[in-house]
């Protein structure tokens, strides 16, 4: 049975409704923070703003704390409510989602760290255009995955899953051209390696957005679509 974002607010126990609502709200807050972290880290790099990069690094603790807090809340709901069906799926999806979001936070931290190194080196590096494009792409995926979670929208989640392949292609093309630059100019190797680390981090953000979209499908449809080809999903989800 498909559920909607109203489903979890119809229990006889109003307290339980509030607990589940709280989980969703906290997850969205964490999603918002993580999204901002990625955006800030990339902007810090592109604008050479080391202060913003430092702030991203400092905020990582806040992301980690949110994960711990939400996980603790989930554990409490599992122990006290023994949820079933869509309630159980919500708690599991939230636990899985916080783990992905925390790792997106780690990637943002990694981008900020490398941004600081690049800013300090003071050399204009190749690959900034690629970083800008890829970051826009994966940030949209992340935003859409979070919106899909908030709205229980499997169609949007499926769109996110379809995006992953093009992100992977974009990443591969960018790294290939950067390898060529490194061969042409060995003095640029250190900076280009930092750029490649940032591209890799962005590509990983896309993977985590992909995972989030899979959690949405599990939550709404009860289907575990991890390790399933997105092409096959269109059929099984009837879209």
């Amino acid at each position: 049975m498909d559920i909607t974002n109203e489903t979890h607010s119809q229990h006889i126990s109003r307290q339980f409704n509030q607990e589940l609502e709280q989980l969703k709200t906290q997850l969205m807050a964490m999603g918002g923070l993580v999204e901002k972290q990625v955006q800030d880290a990339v902007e810090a790099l592109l604008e050479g703003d080391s202060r913003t990069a430092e702030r991203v690094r400092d905020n990582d603790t806040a992301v980690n704390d949110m994960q711990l807090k939400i996980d603790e809340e989930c554990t409490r709901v599992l122990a006290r409510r023994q949820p079933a069906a869509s309630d159980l799926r919500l708690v599991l999806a939230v636990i899985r989602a916080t783990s992905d979001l925390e790792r997106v936070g780690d990637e943002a931290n990694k981008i900020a760290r490398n941004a600081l190194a690049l800013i300090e080196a003071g050399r204009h590096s190749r690959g900034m255009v690629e970083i800008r494009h890829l970051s826009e792409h994966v940030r949209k995926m992340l935003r859409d995955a979070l919106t899909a979670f908030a709205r229980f929208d499997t169609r949007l989640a499926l769109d996110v899953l379809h995006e992953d392949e093009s992100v992977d292609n974009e990443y591969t093309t960018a790294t290939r051209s950067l390898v060529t630059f490194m061969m042409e100019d060995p003095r640029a190797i250190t900076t280009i390696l930092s750029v490649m680390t940032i591209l890799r981090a962005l590509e990983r953000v896309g993977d985590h957005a992909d995972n989030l979209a899979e959690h949405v499908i599990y939550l709404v449809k009860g289907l575990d679509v991890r390790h399933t080809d997105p092409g096959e999903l269109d059929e099984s989800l009837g879209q």
Partner: protein
Amino acid sequence: MSAASFPSGEAVRGSPPVVDFSSASSCFDIENLSLAYDDKPALSDLTLKVPRHRVTAFIGPSGCGKSTLLRALNRLHDLNDQVTRTGRIRLEGQDIHAREVDVAELRRRVGMVFQAPNPFPMSIYENVAYGLRLQGIRRKRELDEIIEWALLSAALWDEVKTNLHASAWTLSGGQQQRLVIARTLAVRPDVLLLDEPASALDPISTLKIEELIRGLKSQLTLVLVTHNMQQAARVSDYTAFLHGGELVEYAPTDTLFTNPRLRRTEDYITGRVG
């Protein structure tokens, strides 16, 4: 995906719900069973199979017909003139209402355990021996062997072996319930029907009964009626959700408790306003 791997469990006239038992074959085949108390319908056109050597749970709100269905499986309603029935119940292929069926023998094959433990006012030993004596078993040695086996099967032997001749009333509620199960097992039934067997027991005694249920399914088929959904989720292989005398959804327990197919089932098992 798992939702699609077994056909409909919804009660639709003329299209019996079927569960894919895979390795298990059916013990009971219930076809179009309707039952009424004094013209007041209690079960409406139920069709389902109960798989052999598995635990099947019937869940649903009070008055949904789950106990009525359980009692129909060993013809307990025969004792009530006001009950009318249509439809058929087959046990291992044989119609349990056929003229040639001996009801006492049916009830030996299909034992029943009720909510409140009801040991007879006699010793532990005599409680278990009771049904055996009725069957004409008199030799002490044979009785001793079967009684030990039944008490072992009911996970009670170690607690009572040194005082078998004490009154059954000296046992705790949980022990009494296991004694009643031993008494039922002693006559070697094929099926054990359990009507809220743990609802009067404390959590530890409940877990012992649940452990016992799990252990017994290698020997016989178990059908459990319970108000406690977590209990159904813990011990059963298949769960049937009844509501208003209808079979709403019948599915493997893992599926029913993680991804039920119907809104009505979802609402009930998650405690929503239905």
